[in-house]
């Protein structure tokens, strides 16, 4: 079994799938840093979920406290709030910078699907304040009309358990 799995992962390596996964992750982070919110939301499958667990041990996003647990509808609420002219806390100059690395395909749960693990670092500037968030992404990607879409993006923040100085307004 182990040999089969090893062989399968080697096949992924040569098939260019990892490069496709990397391209996807890089594009996602560019959309986030570019505040192209709707395009970012469109990367999710219709039933896709964006999840930042409150605790590392949680195994499912539903029914437990979560820092984020959003379907496309809730993502749309967040986007519309950010874009509203009277979103007061959005008047402040702020931007983010994401770096993605350590990209690995760890599984192919079904034909055309990928489970991709990576590490990220996000620097956020808000007025004169700098913050850093870092951690691990786990993307479950599925094929929709020949393109990858996110069924579940799990974001394990390395500093998710610390006290938040101010809050997170957009996705990490």
């Amino acid at each position, binding site marked *: 079994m182990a040999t089969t799995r090893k062989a399968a992962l080697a096949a992924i390596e040569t098939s260019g799938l990892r490069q496709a996964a990397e391209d996807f992750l890089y594009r996602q982070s560019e959309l986030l840093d570019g505040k192209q919110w709707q395009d970012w939301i469109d990367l999710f499958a219709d039933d896709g979920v964006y999840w930042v667990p409150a605790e590392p041990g949680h195994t499912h996003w539903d029914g*437990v*406290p*979560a820092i984020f647990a959003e379907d496309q509808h809730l993502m*749309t609420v967040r986007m519309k*709030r950010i874009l509203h002219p009277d979103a007061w806390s959005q008047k402040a100059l702020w931007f983010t910078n994401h770096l993605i690395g350590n990209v690995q395909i760890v599984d192919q749960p079904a034909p055309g699907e990928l489970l991709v693990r990576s590490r990220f670092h996000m620097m956020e500037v808000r007025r004169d304040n700098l913050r850093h968030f870092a951690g691990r992404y786990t993307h479950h990607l599925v094929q929709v009309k020949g393109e990858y879409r996110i069924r579940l993006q799990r974001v394990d923040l390395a500093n998710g358990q610390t006290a*938040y100085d101010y809050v997170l307004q957009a996705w990490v």
Partner: protein
Amino acid sequence: MKNGITQADLRAMVEPDRVRRDVYTDAELHRLEIERIHETVWIYCGHESQVPKAGDYWTVQIGRQPMVMVRGKDGKVHVLHNRCPHRGAMLCGNQSGNTGDFFRCSYHSWTFHHDGSLKNIPMMESGYQGTRWGRDNPDCRMKGAARVASYRGFVFASLAGEGPTLEEFLGPARIAFDDMCDRSPEGRVEVVPNCFRVIQNSNWKIFMENQLDALHPSVTHQSTGRAARDVEVQIEKEGGVAPLSYHMLSAFATMAIDKWDLMTTINYPNGHAALSGYMGLRPTDPDTLEYERVLTKAYGEERKEKILTTNIHHVLIYPGLSVQSPLQQLRAVRPLGVNKTLTEIWHFRLVGAPEPIYRRALAYYNLINSPSTLVNADDLENFWKCHTGLESDGGDWVSFHRHNGRDVAKPGGILESPPDLGTSEAPMRCQMQAWVHYMTAG
């Protein structure tokens, strides 16, 4: 502000309808209020269900004091100074955990029972023979909070030996815990083991004054209300039903600013207060009806009706607790400095209530009270702006004039802003009266 603040100075800072800005920004006043308010009155430590087993502990800050709440082998919950009497090291370095059969200092291995009494010191007999130190010395222990009491599972401590009992201190504001617990068919709640911690860059009083401020939601939270309403409509168009949490958010926009006057503020003694207003929390979907059946079975029809028609949006326990009883969540306030305040945010499960009722409140906890809050982001922005603005010499006073003089006195020292005056600044005025009382007591 000069040193040597007198009682007359303190009284002059608070007029019935306005307050000196120094009350929010002055470091010396902050030091005094930590001592005379936070380290004197009953402060919320945690819920008994946070420490179910012997040795379970949670650390908590009371004023400037690092404390630890621990469950003893006798089942009792103790609140102790988190400090070894030897060289002062904290016994518990983590936020929470289990300390085992006893506390053990990481510096010299002094050990203490869960009630703080000394268990052992390495080579105690030979090491301390002929000295003033040893088991018989009352200082040779982890010092306990002067008083510890709990109300329906919510544990409070006071660092002052004298003063009103917890129940006297809470007075009619006990409704915060009664309303929360009564909504469980078993009359009790259990903590959901997660604490969201968010820092506000502002004075602690600015947060407390915001909590019952019914004028701000339709202004501050307009953007979130509109966004939630748009998506609510979209979901309905798609033939779906938006979860109740959308309605809680969209109320910020769908309720016109003048409608917020229809709420009522009830101002209890000691600075505590409640805001009525229900935000549509009693719908008629199958989950709610099933929950009502469970409650009727437990309490009977009449009592069930009384519980579910209790009309509370928020209850404040001054100086450090904001409770949303119908949604089983609370925010505890820990001042970190004159311009820095930590909030610890908890959610509770109604023991015996159906799972969907827990999930409904959980959605509110995640959307409004988590670090990705769709709502508090704009509050915290206001708090920071207020605090920074109050540091300006552009004015000396904070205005609490709104609906002043129209409060109605009720028996038991209660002041109500009657319906149609819900945006009254009575809660802020009453908090400041409590502030003067505590600051000038003794």
